[in-house]
């Protein structure tokens, strides 16, 4: 048995125009042996869901710096569910206040990573998600 290569979509929903953080994560995940599909700035929830479906990804990673995570995350979740990707987990990076963690997890976000998170931690988290969610 060969080990499966994890496929991760890294997307930036919403209108903020900074993708440095997203690119750093993309590179770190590549260096951890994952295939990262990077789609660029200003993705609508529908675009994210479409890419996740076509690319058959294991995880969707969202990078949100605008503060609009409480509105964007549910919309992406709905868009994913609408194309029957209910089983594809969302992870979230960016500037997320501590008090939003619980409500976001209630919305089905599998993991939240603030600016200080080590890339090793993110990598291990994704690998765990992928192996427990093996399809």
């Amino acid at each position, binding site marked *: 048995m*060969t080990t499966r290569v994890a496929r991760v979509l890294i997307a930036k929903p919403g209108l903020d125009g900074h993708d440095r953080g997203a690119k750093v994560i993309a590179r770190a995940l*590549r260096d951890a042996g994952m*295939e990262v*599909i990077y789609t660029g700035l200003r993705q609508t929830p*529908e675009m994210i869901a479409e890419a996740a479906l076509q690319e*058959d990804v294991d995880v969707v990673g969202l990078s949100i710096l605008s503060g609009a995570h409480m509105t964007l995350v549910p919309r992406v979740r709905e868009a994913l569910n609408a194309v*029957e990707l209910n089983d594809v987990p969302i992870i979230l990076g960016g500037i997320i206040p501590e008090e939003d963690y619980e409500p976001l997890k209630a919305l089905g976000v599998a993991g939240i990573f603030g600016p200080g998170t080590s890339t090793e931690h993110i990598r291990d988290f994704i690998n765990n998600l992928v192996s427990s969610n093996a399809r």
Partner: protein
Amino acid sequence: MPADLVPQVLAGNRRALARLLSHVERGEAEAALKALYPHTGRAWVIGVTGSPGSGKSSLVNALTQHYRANGETVAIVAVDPTSPFSGGAILGDRIRMRDLSGDAGVFIRSMATRGSLGGLARTTRDMVRVIDAAGFDRILIETVGAGQSEVEVARVAYTTLVVEAPGMGDDIQAIKAGILEIADVLVVNKADRIGANQTARALKTMLELGHPAARVYHHGQYMTVEAAPAPVAEWIPEVVMTVATERKGIAELAAAIEAHRQHRLRDAGPFDPQALRAELFERAREALFQQWLQTLSPDTIETLIQRMHQRELDPQTAVQQLLAPPSAQEHGHARP
């Protein structure tokens, strides 16, 4: 089970298609590929290769819009290299294809080269066949033109575009080094930049230099021969200038692709018997090798490697010893 996805793929289910493509990439879709094969042969497969940043993805984006305006459906396979250090990859071609999002007549799949068993060409060919069976009219394969793998992927395509941009002096050298041989259409993209005419002229000159001798399709590879026994007039690659980001020159590019398609249909067609022969041999070679490998004991192999390492045995003699049937090894050269 990958095979269970077959009816859904044939019915146009995009999620099933995406799933099956993953199985194909992992080399776990033999039954599905077998079931889908009779449904292939409709799509026209176009390879798009060329230097990094020359505008391949932008061109794929523009060309796809052109085909969509004609009512044709388009699937895109965008190949990027796997990092040899980590085995991971960043697949970023979708960034330049955002115009295509939300269109149900388009399907985009990114793919890393991986260290795929049986080679990238084989995996790509299998992916293309699945997409073909799913009913797409055009399949565009984007690869970065640098190494041997791109040449292999180009062999999967029926029409291959090689994309250059002005001001990439060194890459003209790369073109000389062999990529010109795989081009059916040469695209000078970024024609809005200075030096575009010069690049186009340089390419034309190179084409003329390269073409007194004809190319023939031989065992699935283009080979240059002095005098070709060509049943159909030889195809001379066209040079087309485009500005992908402004969708300029795209109709001309589509016309050049169509001309090549007509040429190829007059000749061997997409399912070229020569290419099929090459594929059959390639697959047989791989299967035979795997089968034979199973019959060898690891000890035998290790002993031979040791002796090669000690300079006692040269590699070719080692191979002969491996291939000699056990009886021949016992009786030396004696024949009954």
